């Protein structure tokens, strides 16, 4: 296409910043889910990526079977994931936690493998996509291409994250979650039912993972083991932001989105994921409380 | 020459100065008490001397040789052993194995290391518990197990971090006798302790620290009447 003007260096930069922030907002949502759970229970939930995967398939099937727009189906899947998460905590995780953090880690690894392979068994390993009529032509504000599904997902991610922020800062259960996260013993002494709060938090984390999955579904290929890649990214995010810190996870998510999209343009497409992992290792080794110094080491 | 020399020892955590230009000596054959209000920096001093923390500044010499920068296991092998404020036994291993592991630091053969462990365990009165799991011992027994483990490394200097915390009066008496016996066997002791009666009774000398700084250093009876020390304990009488 000789006639089309090549994008200038500034356009390329702005374009990759925009797509980095858009993807990053969804990463942030996944990271927030993992980090609140870690904050309250000190569990690193290796099955978190599979919860995102379930959200993605939820959106896919709602669209394929009931012709439901994926972004509408979020109203169905979020409460379901929330309830499911609470049940998982109550009946599966709670009896394990006293066995120590490594046992819990291995247990969630088992859970992750179980869910991913049940999904593989039920839905095969085929790559699937959700084809939306409004996904064909992107928006072009100021000449920057913004895919409509990603824009909607971004807007919803902001709404959901803001709602979560309000919940954590303005409501009693939200404050109880934050108090438990800061100091479980003190929280228990002040009459907070740590068990109930843990269950609530795990439900919340699962709901966030599911919501992120639904929002991501129209923009990604989906397949049963996609959680494996997502969880790896998720660790990068929460460690960058400081484990246990909600605002850190949001910043970490956007940062990873930016690093990936800028890295793909300015370093190499092949190694864009490597940059994230190297940052992850450096932060773990030299700034275990996260780049912003707010997490728990 | 003093056995241990701590000079101008300083440790910062971020912006917080936990230990500030602290200097003291421990002489051979001495029981030195290290006291101070909660958060004064006593455990931090132990962690610095044993290499679990790296000092921001200052010197730590064992018999004239610097141990700064050595990792904890190397310091143990130089002759400084320690116990922990919150006991850290190897919970799922037997009492005998707990102490044998320590004896390995200077005795490579398992048979001899095990015999050495049995001897040390007898000294602390745990000879009937050789095959119990460490996790199954009472707190008092676990504290003695930690002392045995430290002794089995054949130390010249033993740092005891609250060996009497949480013990009943009878156990405290036994622990005092044990510490005095350890000194009689030629091992110097530095003792951090909140059980004041005990520390007054067995220490040859007491160093008091407050906010990471030394505020008194001398024999127990003099330190206890020091106005600065009394003020540091918020006006409450020490004994």
């Amino acid at each position, binding site marked *: 296409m000789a006639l089309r003007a090549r994008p200038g260096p500034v356009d390329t930069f702005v374009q990759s910043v925009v797509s980095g922030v858009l993807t990053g907002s969804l990463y942030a949502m996944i990271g927030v889910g993992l980090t609140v759970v870690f904050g309250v229970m000190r569990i*690193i939930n290796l099955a978190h990526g599979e919860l995102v995967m379930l959200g993605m398939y939820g959106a896919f099937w709602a669209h394929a079977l009931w012709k439901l727009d994926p972004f509408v189906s979020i109203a169905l899947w979020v409460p379901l994931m929330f309830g499911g998460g609470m049940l998982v905590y109550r009946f599966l995780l709670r009896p394990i936690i006293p*066995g120590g953090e490594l046992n819990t880690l291995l247990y969630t690894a*088992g859970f992750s493998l179980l869910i991913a*392979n049940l999904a593989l068994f039920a839905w095969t390993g085929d790559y699937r996509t959700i084809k939306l009529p409004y996904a064909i032509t992107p928006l072009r504000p100021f000449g920057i291409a913004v895919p409509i599904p990603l824009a909607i997902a971004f807007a919803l991610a902001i709404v959901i994250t803001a709602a979560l922020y309000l919940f954590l800062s303005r409501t009693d259960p939200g404050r109880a979650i934050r108090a438990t996260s800061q100091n479980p013993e003190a929280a228990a002494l002040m009459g907070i039912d740590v068990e109930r709060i843990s269950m609530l938090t795990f439900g919340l984390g699962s709901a966030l993972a599911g919501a992120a999955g639904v929002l991501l579904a129209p923009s990604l290929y989906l397949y049963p083991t996609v959680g494996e890649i997502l969880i*790896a990214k998720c660790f990068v995010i929460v460690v960058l932001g400081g484990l246990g810190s909600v605002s850190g996870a949001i910043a970490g998510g956007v940062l990873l989105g930016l690093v990936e999209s800028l890295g793909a343009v300015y370093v190499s497409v092949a190694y864009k994921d*490597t940059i994230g992992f190297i940052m992850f290792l450096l932060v773990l*080794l030299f700034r275990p409380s996260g780049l912003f110094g707010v997490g728990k080491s | 020459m003093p056995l241990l020399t701590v000079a101008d020892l300083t440790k910062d955590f971020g912006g917080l100065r936990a230990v500030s230009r602290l200097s003291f000596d421990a002489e051979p054959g001495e029981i030195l008490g290290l006291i101070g209000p909660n958060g004064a920096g006593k455990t931090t001093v132990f962690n610095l001397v044993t290499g679990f923390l790296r000092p921001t500044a200052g010197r730590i010499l064992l018999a004239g040789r610097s141990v700064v920068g050595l990792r904890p296991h190397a310091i143990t092998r130089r002759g400084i052993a320690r116990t922990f404020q919150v006991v850290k036994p190897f919970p799922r291993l037997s009492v005998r194995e707990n102490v044998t592991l320590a004896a390995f630091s200077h005795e490579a053969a*398992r048979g001899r290391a095990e015999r050495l462990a049995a001897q040390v365990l007898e000294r602390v009165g745990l000879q009937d518990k050789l095959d119990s799991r460490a996790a199954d011992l009472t707190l008092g027994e676990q504290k003695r197990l930690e002392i045995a*483990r430290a002794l089995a490394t054949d130390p010249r200097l033993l740092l005891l971090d609250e060996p009497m915390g949480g013990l009943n009066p009878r156990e405290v008496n036994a622990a005092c006798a044990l510490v005095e016996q350890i000194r009689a066997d030629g091992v110097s002791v530095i003792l951090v302790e909140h059980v004041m009666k005990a520390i007054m009774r067995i220490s040859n000398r007491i160093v008091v620290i407050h906010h990471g700084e030394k505020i008194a250093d001398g024999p127990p009876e003099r330190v206890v009447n020091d106005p600065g020390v009394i003020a540091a304990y918020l006006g409450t009488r020490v004994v």
Partner: protein
Amino acid sequence: MTRGSAGAAVLVLVLVPPLLTSNPFLLHLAITVLLWTLLGAAWNLLGGFAGQVSFGHSTFFGVGAYTTMILYLKGGLAPWYGMVLGGMVAVLVSLPIGLICFRLRGPYFSLSTLAVAEIVRLVALNWEGLTNGPVGLLITTLPRVVWGGWTLNWESKVPFYYMIAILALASMLATYRLSRARLGAYLLAIREDEDAAESVGIDTVRAKVLTLALSAFFTGLGGGFYGLYFRYVDPDAVFPIALSVEMVFIAVVGGLATVIGPVIGAVFLTTIGEMFRERFLVGHLIFYGLFMMLVIRYLPEGIWGGTRRAWAKRP
């Protein structure tokens, strides 16, 4: 049973199967079980004894596999020598990884090994000059081996069976020796409490790095064998996270820090998995996940550890 007769029994148990059957599926199953025994035992050295849960052992497997393949395809070195060299290269790779990751403890160590493994996988995927990238490396013919006029048949599974049987036995022997050695005792101390281990004079970093190297050596051998047996490697086959995770599962389900545990784990999980795969093609790891959850909840010492305890307590 004396140690000698136990050894003889194991030897017979291992040597006999190919004489009883020539069914390729059964032999393939036996080879798979033994390969996983080797990998589970290798992982167990570090994970079981020292309590250091690595989620990155696929790195050593992949490095072993690629070393063997590359040396054969590009240098003409017979793959059985290549396997040993593969183990050694895995050891070399393990040293910097150990020095970096062992600065972290508990779950943080686990996450860091996961990150390193992903970095290594991405490098293998993109360093096309060395690894041929996603296309992978293929062995078309194996070198001819003649012993006194008898030519080894590479199309049969029997030579592979004996090869992997020897490797698996070697890994079990190493586990046994470690459990008797001072290093083994140090590792248990590290598993129980790292600070306390340092305080009694144990150089914890050295102990862990040495053990990781040993573990990497056996894992690398396993990778080399994989390349030789399947004659094909690509990054998705030998470097995935799932592979690391499977090693963990075999060791944990079988019984941590035991000689027999990884065999039990491998027999149990691999047999169920392969039978499931034979019938349904996908999803055979369902049982891995399920048994991991059951074992952690009801039998934290693993199948073998739990059985042994119950046996010791019998009236």
